């Protein structure tokens, strides 16, 4: 069964190639159906293998395909364990739904087949990432998803903002990749291999805590790039320039969670380095807080969701930092469902509003698009963390795990609760401003419900959003049990009684409901409240982080480059070369003055030299 796993990568790749070369001939919307078909097929291929893993009929296994780079022992090999199975299911499952959704959403775009080609390429890249059995191959997937992300963000490249956003995403991700790359160097220098199983089995023996800290910190730099953590989160809000299905698939559900996935995959190494764990936890918490603070003031519906994604990724990273891998992955899963749902819902709204994304000109859409309204309502409650929606269970688990760590981690727990409050608040703001109240549409906009290809994915995702949380409750720990196979070398610390868990959950629930009530009271009225004041203004331009980076890194960097190019290279280096050149010429001019052109002067020179030579020979030969 595992032998056909390579098809999970190959099928979307084939789909991508077909659409790239023949997409125009296939035409709309058939090209979209082809793309959807290949992804769905990949999902079907992976499905039985996943079930076999759940019922334990096949072991965790590596399937060797071929040798990639022999000198560094990098093979192309696939690892099929619960973690990769879960990610495969998320990526191909949600991926299929979003492909289905895009068939309607992208209708009429002149580069329709190209879009699906890129989407399929993304699925293939993501599968390489999650199925990889070694770090080298993971890095391939890691970079390839960056490529697909670049292609899809700047899909509407005639908009300068879209092109710039794509570039920014790739470059910022590359900064993270630098960390990953250096981590790979240290890993190879320490282990002599990239193979996960070998590394995890031997890590405690082979490397010291110091090396583990170095490796994990660098890996975290990579994760921070891909999963949009401080200080590298700035690309994700800009990435919303891409088409909405892209935002849903790549920048909410799957690719951005790659960093979290990578940390979970390297759990053994992170377990060895408590310092890294602490840093990871703090960075995650701060990211969650900062992003939530920015999200509350955004007026662009996709921007709110983008910052919300960063904030939720902060939660997941916090989970990784405190060693609650299962909880983090669980939140990753539920978040994939409800955030994809929210984005697709937002896309549906934008579609209905003829491309308008400003929530201030929406309102009252409830009656016009009931399916979108209901499904997004489920997403809203899930993200806010209301019992019994999926978000409640997973977020609560992370907070509980943080609390269980004790010590200064309690502080992180408090911040986490604050973020939960803000989350509920801004999601309520989004929901109320969009669907409730009075219509504030501009003239000529006639909102309507989206076609079936768009609403069916919404309904399916909505069902999962409502129910999926139940697979891992304090009473039923199926999910955690399933993932155990992936964390076999990780030692679990469990310290909370059932009473404490229920107590913490109650607190979280109260906070969430408080946030919803606050938002409801503030925004559910006939006039939109004015959002001015210092905090609102600073928050709306994202605390000026982009400008700050521009001032402190981009501009000085550009200045330095210009100096090197225009001054150092031209004046100094070329100057030296020219100096040598003109020096030689000057010396030549001096010598040229000896060339009087007078034959007799030359002859005299020859004669004098002859005499002198004879004298020298005599002197040397002792002729005198």
């Amino acid at each position, binding site marked *: 069964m595992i032998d056909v796993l390579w098809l999970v990568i190959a099928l979307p790749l084939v789909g991508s190639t077909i659409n790239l070369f023949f997409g125009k001939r296939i035409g709309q919307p058939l090209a979209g159906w082809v793309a959807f078909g290949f992804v769905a097929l990949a999902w079907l291929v992976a499905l039985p293998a996943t079930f076999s893993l759940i019922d334990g009929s096949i072991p965790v296994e590596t399937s060797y395909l071929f040798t990639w780079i022999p000198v560094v022992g990098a093979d192309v090999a696939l690892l099929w364990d619960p973690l990769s199975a879960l990610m495969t299911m998320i990526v191909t499952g949600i991926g299929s739904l979003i492909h289905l959704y895009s068939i309607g959403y992208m209708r009429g775009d002149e580069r329709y087949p190209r879009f699906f080609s890129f989407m399929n390429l993304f699925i293939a890249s993501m599968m390489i990432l999650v199925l990889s059995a070694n770090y080298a191959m993971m890095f391939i997937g890691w970079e390839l998803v960056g490529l697909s992300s670049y292609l899809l963000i700047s899909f509407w490249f005639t908009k300068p903002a879209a092109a710039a956003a794509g570039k920014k995403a790739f470059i910022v991700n590359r900064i993270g990749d630098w960390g990953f790359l250096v981590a790979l160097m240290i890993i190879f220098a320490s282990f002599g291999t990239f193979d996960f199983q070998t590394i995890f089995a031997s890590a405690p023996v082979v490397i010291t805590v110091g090396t583990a800290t170095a490796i994990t910190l660098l890996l975290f730099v990579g994760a921070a790039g891909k999963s949009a953590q401080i200080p590298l989160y700035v690309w994700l809000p800009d990435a919303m320039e891409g088409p909405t299905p892209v935002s849903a698939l790549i920048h909410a559900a799957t690719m951005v969670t790659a960093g979290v996935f990578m940390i979970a995959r390297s759990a053994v190494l992170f377990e060895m380095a408590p310092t890294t764990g602490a840093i990871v936890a703090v960075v995650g918490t701060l990211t969650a807080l900062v992003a939530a603070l920015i999200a509350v003031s955004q007026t662009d519906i996709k921007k709110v969701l983008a910052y919300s994604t960063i904030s939720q990724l902060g939660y997941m990273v916090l989970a990784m930092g405190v060693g609650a891998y299962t909880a983090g992955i669980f939140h990753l899963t539920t978040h994939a469902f409800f955030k994809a749902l929210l984005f697709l819902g937002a896309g549906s709204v934008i579609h209905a509003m003829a491309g308008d994304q400003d929530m201030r000109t929406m309102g009252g859409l409830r009656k016009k698009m009931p399916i979108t309204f209901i499904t997004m309502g489920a997403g809203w409650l899930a993200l806010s963390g209301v019992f019994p929606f999926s978000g409640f269970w997973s977020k609560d688990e992370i907070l509980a795990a943080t609390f269980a760590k004790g010590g200064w981690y309690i502080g992180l727990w408090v911040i986490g609760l604050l973020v939960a409050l803000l989350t509920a608040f801004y999601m309520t703001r989004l929901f109320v401003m969009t669907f409730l109240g009075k219509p504030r549409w501009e003239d000529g906009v006639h909102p309507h419900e989206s076609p079936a290809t768009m609403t069916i994915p919404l309904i399916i995702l909505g069902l999962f959003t409502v129910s999926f949380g139940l697979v891992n409750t304090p009473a039923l720990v199926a999910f955690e049990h399933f993932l155990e196979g992936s964390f076999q070398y990780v030692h679990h610390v469990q310290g909370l009684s059932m009473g404490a868990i229920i107590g913490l959950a109650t607190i979280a629930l109260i906070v969430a409901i408080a946030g919803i009530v606050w938002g409801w009271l503030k925004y559910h009225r006939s006039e939109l409240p004015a959002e001015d004041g210092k905090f609102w203004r600073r928050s709306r331009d994202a605390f000026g982080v982009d400008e700050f980076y521009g001032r402190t890194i981009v501009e000085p960097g550009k200045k330095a480059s210009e100096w090197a190019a225009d001054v150092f290279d031209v004046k100094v280096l070329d100057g030296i070369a020219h100096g040598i050149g003109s020096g030689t010429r000057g010396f030549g001019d001096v010598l040229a003055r000896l060339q009087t052109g007078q034959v007799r*002067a030359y002859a005299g020179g020859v004669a004098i030299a002859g005499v002198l030579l*004879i004298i020298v020979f*005599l002197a040397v030969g002792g002729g005198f």
Partner: protein
Amino acid sequence: MAETIVFIIFAAVALAGAVSMITASNPVYSAMGLLAAMFAIAVLYVMLDAHFVAAVQVIIYAGAVMTLFLFVIMLIGVDKPDAYGKQVPAQRVITGIVALGLFGSIVLAGRAAWITGSNAFGTANLNGTAEAVADELFGTWMIVFLATVMLLTIAALGTIALAYFRDVPEEEMVG
């Protein structure tokens, strides 16, 4: 003894001719001086048993080459008295020092190596007849001889070329 007298006389003629050649202000007198020197050298060749070389010296140098010189002198004209030059003021002094230095250093250098000492000068029976020279020239030195043939041909061609292709535009000649 007779040899000594002959040597002294003709050596003196050769030196006198040479000196008059470089000092005469009229090129025709210079040519005459050189002619005298060459005849004297031819006699010295005979003293050295190089009969054939002596004959060639007279025919080629004294005959052909000097005639050519005189011909060119006449062609160019002798009406321009030649000065010793004035670019370098101390030129004659320097020239004298250089020439003397050269002579001195050659003599000094040769002193050790020269085959002095032997009474009769040289090997008695060196036969410099045309036959002996021809044996050597067309035997061992055949290839070199042919090379000189080519050289002469080329020289002849060069001369013709110089005379023939002379209608070159002024600016290119100077350029």
